[in-house]
């Protein structure tokens, strides 16, 4: 096939990009070379629209061992232990084929983590679906949950936390973001930078098939009516093989045989070989006839573009081939020497004894296009003036029940019951809490992790929204008694070629950066997913933050369930009653306008540190941050989990009870305090000069507030717990 501009465009390249390729190569590429360019230059692999802005992110910190740019980020948690973690999107494939799309998303992110020598110890996920009324939602949700479970359960890594939301902007583009944490000795971390000449390049894992060809280009384009035709570009996962690959790799990593290792993810063999050579400033020669293939007569083009799962590329020390082969034989995995490192700084491909491609590496990596796309600022919407007389017709208890059963608030047990969350025997906080927590095996330490996103806030005002999610992640970790350390982010946006979408991206990143800098909560890894758009309808901007924190003594971990009758309940942080963009405004007033709540980073940090101090001194026995749905929603969850009620005080100087109870002001936590610690708690709160309200007392089996609310916990639980199950069964 002759390579023309039209062929290049078919491969997802732009006209100008094709001319640039010809110019750089000083000739027209052949088809295989074109394929390699298209794989490396697409948005998914090259970050060409985002790179300029990602550079500004706050990525350094005392505990950061490895920031963005590797397979995953790495943080130091003391005693030579390090946590490797990252979040990644698998949105496009999951919409086309929910089970396999989600499953291979989980498989891919776990490989990113064990590629670095870490044993995965926890999985999380953030999944977003269209409106519950949309005809595809139920099946997509069922398929995605089964896919995530099918993969993670089989590998034997607990899924400890997650987030699920519904919004009509995802009707044509669901989001599936998967996150994995792994544990590694900080002196035994493996990187993807090749080093040394003439070192054997090894292929291990599954055989290469024709699945997933053009997967990365598919993820770099918007959807149209013909998305069903894209099904063959979705990879098919085999968790059993991944489990074997995990064990085999960790076994080989126990000694010093590996120089560099990289998993074959998006754009398969192409991107893994180019990245390893590029980082090592080397060349690489691959003999594609040696690649283990699943199907007959695969061409170099297909071999280079295949996204078959569960494969790794390794640069090995010379002479270690036999030793390594023995390990992979033991685990029944393919093992082939397919090439070597060279000093040419080119990627050279041999097939049937002929050279079939030759490209200087720097053209694929450093010379890949970078775009400074134009973007538009989003103005802060005007604050709404609610007609408070309208509220009077609303009964507080009815409002509460309605909010608790809202699709975005309601309990997601139906989902996480399908994920193995206890395997490995160290899960000490299950899904459903503020963060999932696993112990660092055999130590007193525990690691907490949470995933968060606030698409409504980000849509209303991206800069504030970006800040807010970092703060929310920070709070979710503190709420379980963990010191926040670092974050990973998955930036899900629409089409970057549109000014509005690009502006959302730029300003969310700005917000994330500002907050993570202030809170000393650096970004160590992440990925960008653009083009989440179908037929011109883009998603709401949905950056997802995966936060990781450390509890130095796991016995000090906090949970949100109320513990003992008679204990006092405080809300720490000030409540102004911000209703714009709240669930209350949406669900009860059908009001979608207005700005998101203001983020005050000083307060976030100061109040966060106060709560952490209280928990370290074991002065509080339960804790929960106040977020979506406000104080009353947060209290209800604490009651439901603890199977205990609360008697709420008549609050003095309350301007409006609806604003107070349902407002979504930031930087607030609810804590339960035993009477004996009260004085010490008050002293600490005063020392940090933080505002707090004495909210009430844990008592009985109902939530009671003056004559307004008297709801048995069981009734609340019913509203909160069963919405999703009923929805899925209907």
């Amino acid at each position, binding site marked *: 096939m002759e390579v023309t501009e039209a062929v290049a465009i078919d491969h997802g390249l732009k006209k100008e990009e094709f001319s640039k390729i010809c110019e750089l190569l000083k000739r027209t590429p052949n088809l295989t070379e074109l394929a390699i360019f298209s794989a490396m230059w697409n948005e998914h692999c090259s970050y060409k629209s985002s790179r300029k802005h990602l550079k500004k992110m706050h990525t350094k910190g005392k505990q950061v061992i490895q920031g963005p740019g590797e397979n995953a980020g790495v943080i130091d948690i003391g005693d030579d232990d390090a946590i490797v973690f990252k979040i990644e999107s698998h949105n496009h494939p999951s919409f086309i084929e929910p089970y396999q799309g989600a499953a291979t998303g989980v498989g891919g992110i776990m490989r990113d983590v064990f590629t670095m020598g870490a044993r995965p110890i926890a999985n999380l996920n953030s999944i977003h679906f269209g409106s519950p009324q949309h005809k595809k939602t139920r099946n997509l949700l069922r398929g995605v949950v*089964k896919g995530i*479970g*099918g993969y993670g*359960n*089989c*590998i*034997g890594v607990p899924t400890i936390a997650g987030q699920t939301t519904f919004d009509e902007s995802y009707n044509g583009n669901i989001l599936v973001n998967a996150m994995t944490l792994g544990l590694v000795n900080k002196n035994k971390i493996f990187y993807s930078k090749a080093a040394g000449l003439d070192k054997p390049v090894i292929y291990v894992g599954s055989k290469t098939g024709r699945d997933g060809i053009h997967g990365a280009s598919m993820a770099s384009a918007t959807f149209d009516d013909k998305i069903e035709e894209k099904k063959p570009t979705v990879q098919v996962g*085999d*968790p*059993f*093989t991944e*489990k*074997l690959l995990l064990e085999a790799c960790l076994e080989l990593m126990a000694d010093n045989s590996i120089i560099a290792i990289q998993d074959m993810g998006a754009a398969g063999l192409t991107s893994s070989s180019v990245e390893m050579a590029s980082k090592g400033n080397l060349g690489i020669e691959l003999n594609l006839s040696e690649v283990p293939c699943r199907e007959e007569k695969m061409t170099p083009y297909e071999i280079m573009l295949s996204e078959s799962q569960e494969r790794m590329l390794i640069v090995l020390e010379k002479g270690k081939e036999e030793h390594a082969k023995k390990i992979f034989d*033991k*685990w*029944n995995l393919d093992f082939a020497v397919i090439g070597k490192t060279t000093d040419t700084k080119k990627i050279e491909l041999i097939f049937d004894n002929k050279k079939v491609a030759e490209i200087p590496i720097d053209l694929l990596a450093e010379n890949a296009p970078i775009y400074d796309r134009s973007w538009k600022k989003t103005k802060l919407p005007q604050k709404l003036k609610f007609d408070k007389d309208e509220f009077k017709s609303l009964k507080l208890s009815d409002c509460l029940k309605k909010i608790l059963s809202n699709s975005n608030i309601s309990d997601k047990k139906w989902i*996480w*019951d*399908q*994920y*193995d*969350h*206890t*395997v*490995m*025997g*160290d*899960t*000490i906080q*299950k899904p459903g809490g503020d963060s999932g927590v696993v*112990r660092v095996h055999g130590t007193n330490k525990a690691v907490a992790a949470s995933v968060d996103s606030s698409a409504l806030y980000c849509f209303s005002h991206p800069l504030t929204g970006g800040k807010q999610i970092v703060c929310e992640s920070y709070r979710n970790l503190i709420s379980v008694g963990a010191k926040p350390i670092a974050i990973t982010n998955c930036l899900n946006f629409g089409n970057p070629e549109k000014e509005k979408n690009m502006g959302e991206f730029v300003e969310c990143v700005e917000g994330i950066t500002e907050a993570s800098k202030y809170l000393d909560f650096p970004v160590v890894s992440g990925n960008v997913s653009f083009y989440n758009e179908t037929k011109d309808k883009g998603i709401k901007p949905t950056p997802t933050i995966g936060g990781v924190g450390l509890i130095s003594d*796991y*016995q000090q*971990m906090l949970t949100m369930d109320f513990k003992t009758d008679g204990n006092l309940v405080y809300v720490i942080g000030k409540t102004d009653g911000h209703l714009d963009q709240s669930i209350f405004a949406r669900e009860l007033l059908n009001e979608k306008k207005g700005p998101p709540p203001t983020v005050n980073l000083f307060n976030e940090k100061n109040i966060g540190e106060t709560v952490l101090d209280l928990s370290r001194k074991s002065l509080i026995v339960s804790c929960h941050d106040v977020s979506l749905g406000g104080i009353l929603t947060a209290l209800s969850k604490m009651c439901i989990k603890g199977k205990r009620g609360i008697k709420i005080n008549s609050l003095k100087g309350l301007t409006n009870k609806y604003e107070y109870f349902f407002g979504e002001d930031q930087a607030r936590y609810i804590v339960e305090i035993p009477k004996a610690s009260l004085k010490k708690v008050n002293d600490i709160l005063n020392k940090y000069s933080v505002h707090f309200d004495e909210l009430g007392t844990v008592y009985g089996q109902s939530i009671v507030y003056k004559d307004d609310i008297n709801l048995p916990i069981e009734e609340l639980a019913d509203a909160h717990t069963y919405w999703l199950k009923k929805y899925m069964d209907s």
Partner: protein
Amino acid sequence: MRSSVIIFPGSNCDRDMDVALKKFGFKNQMVWHNDQSIPKSDLIVLPGGFSYGDYLRCGSIASKSKIIKSVIDFANSGGLVLGICNGFQILTETGLLKGILQQNKFLNFICSNVFIKVKDKQNKYFKDLKKDILELHIAHNEGNYFCSDDELKSLEDNNQIAVTYCGEDGVENESTNPNGAIKNIAGIFNKNKNVLGMMPHPERMIDKYLSGEDGSLFFENILDNFK
């Protein structure tokens, strides 16, 4: 007491079992599926997981693995063989235990705490157990036990039903049956009661910071009965 945990490719509760056994004082060793023989043991454990990817049928390929002949010989000579979850599935596939484990009634994987009632204490696993109802944990997609009427009758006649799903108060009915298992069966014995297969995972419930600690009673009791 010496124990051996068999590792099949795809086992994923092998380490958890090793940790639990050692915590309570077993001298445990790990045995690879391709080994010819099992070191001298008083208890052999087939752990949970997805042996051989659970391809074909859960546990079926493992039941034809190299090591399994030694397991069967050990069981037939009266040795204690415990299969948890996938291990239970493997034991039914070998024929050491009767019946089969089908997909859960509601077709979903279930990961949850459950209560189980100990139905028979005339055996080396449960003799003198301090509680009659234990809170344990299940995590499976194929735990729906089924057998023929004749097999069920013989299980009942010989007191081979080891544990059943129940409520906290011991009530066994449809609402306390998580997966649709016939007669709420969560675990069974062979005729000699030296082979026990059960779906719940005691190894995940061994300290108070986990989902519970009734698993500790299970392991401690086996040790006490061995003394």
